[in-house]
């Protein structure tokens, strides 16, 4: 075996180089993700106001069980998850399939247009939708002029409609983003598979479920995990579109954590306990996804 100047074998040298290459990234992830996670766990067993904290066992967690606002935010977040994520992903796959057609003209134009919403800052689009759906906003004006409604709807002032506006806004913002991943996935599928299916006389529905869906599975898994993760952490929309209202009907879990830590008397321990609930949810859901997605 060759040896380099310092008396190391070539393989040892490469091994050390490899570690130095990945070390900065690894250290940062440990310091900025894992270490704070441990800190948050310790914090979740303490209670008090501000920096005046004392160990208090499971008090924060038992308090959570009785906190109506927390459960409302929990239900809201899951409602977004169950309604918005499936609609958005199905729409994204559908659009990707349309855009993937060989003989389609103006492909680039359509793709750019559909992806464009993702370029707007989360804060920006929240404010755009808030203004469009406000009581004297554009949506009401148009619906009124078209005769679809007889009087202005207070979209953001009613519990159900406020939720619907948030869901519409989320679908608008994120469908194109997911579509890009599906487009990429579709491009990696070999054309000969489709030709073979055609020769075998398979219709387009059958082709989709027997060829496209199974081959897109890794991409579907990736986008589902990203979407679940993103939805459980919703914050900007809740703050800037509806302010969590009316009567907490659109408040998300992250927004409530922020309020408990920075808006009222800061209760870091209690907020940390809540954040651990989100963490456990994300972990469990991702784990289920991976198990289901891995089945072949």
């Amino acid at each position: 075996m060759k040896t380099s100047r310092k008396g190391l074998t070539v393989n040892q040298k490469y091994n050390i180089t490899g570690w130095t290459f990945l070390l900065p990234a690894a250290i940062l992830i440990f310091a900025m993700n894992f270490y704070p996670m441990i800190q948050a766990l310790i914090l979740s067993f303490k209670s008090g106001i501000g920096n005046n904290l004392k160990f208090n066992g499971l008090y924060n967690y038992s308090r959570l069980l009785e906190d109506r606002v927390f459960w409302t935010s929990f239900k809201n977040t899951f409602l977004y998850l169950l309604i918005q994520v499936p609609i958005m992903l199905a729409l994204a796959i559908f659009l990707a399939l349309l855009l993937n057609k060989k003989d389609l003209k103006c492909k680039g134009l359509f793709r750019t247009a559909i992806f464009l919403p993702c370029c707007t800052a989360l804060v920006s689009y929240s404010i755009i939708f808030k203004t469009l759906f406000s009581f004297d906003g554009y949506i009401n004006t148009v619906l009124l002029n078209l005769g679809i409604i007889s009087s202005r709807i207070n979209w953001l002032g009613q519990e159900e409609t406020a939720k619907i506006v948030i869901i519409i806004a989320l679908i608008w913002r994120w469908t194109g983003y997911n579509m890009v991943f599906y487009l990429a996935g579709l491009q990696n599928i070999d054309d000969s598979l489709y030709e073979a299916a055609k020769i075998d006389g398979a219709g387009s529905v059958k082709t989709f479920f027997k060829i496209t869906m199974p081959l897109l599975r890794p991409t579907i898994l990736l986008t589902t995990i990203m979407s679940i993760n993103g939805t459980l952490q919703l914050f900007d929309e809740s703050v800037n579109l509806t302010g969590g209202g009316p009567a907490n009907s659109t408040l998300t879990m992250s927004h409530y954590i922020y309020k408990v830590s920075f808006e009222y008397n800061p209760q870091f321990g209690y907020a940390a306990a809540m954040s651990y609930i989100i963490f456990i949810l994300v972990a469990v859901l991702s784990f289920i996804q991976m198990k289901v997605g891995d089945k072949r």
Partner: protein
Amino acid sequence: MRKIKNVSTYVILSIVSLISVFPLYWMISAATNNSTDILGGRLIFGTNLMNNLTNLLEQQNVGRAFGNSLMFSTILSVLSLVVCSIAGYGFEIYHDRAKDRLMGILLLAMMVPFAATLIPLFKMFTDLNLQSTWIAYVLPTISTPFLIMLFRQSARSFPKDIIEAARIDGLSEIRIFATIFVPTMKSTYAAAMTVTFMNAWNNYLWPKVIMMSEKSQTMPMLVTNLSVGYSIDYGVLMLGVLICSLPTGILFLVLQKSFANGIVGAVKG
């Protein structure tokens, strides 16, 4: 039959494209109108742009917020690309069992919600007296499992013979990375740059918490300030929203093609 199918494809895509673009068009047209016209439902461009701009500049320090956002996001994206690409390369090219296992652990960080690390990070940075500095803005998100994975994936498709040949030519490992890998992976870098810069620019929760001094205010924070209050001037507000969306919009339009290619490479698996 085939013709009908084709026509319906164009109809559906046109409608979806219109819905996607309309709010953005509305934002731009609103930035050129005054509040009364906007609420009246005016859609065509008006002549109030300069007026809105003057009012906006009078009310808020837009230059400072824009400069802050631009500086923080650029520093964060560049550092992030350097740190994560070299790590992704390291994980793939020199991979062995220990490194693969470490990668598996790092991927777990994808599941860590920001809300959970928010308070400890806040305490950490305030204890170090780093609040309201660029370091506080960038440090928590320089290294992300998503980017490391993206670069590891693209390093997988990188021909290993080239590395061997370069080694025989006597190039050092870091030079092989910097002069051969980086230039061939342009589209991956473009995709990573687009995603990272957008996230960095749009970042809201963390800056809202840690950038406490007025001097360190960022563009999204400034825009939200415009949207609260008793009498909102919608023309001024939408101009602010427009300015806040410009950098990410331009970046995407410029890097669009390489962005799509970079994602194709990453999804390949």
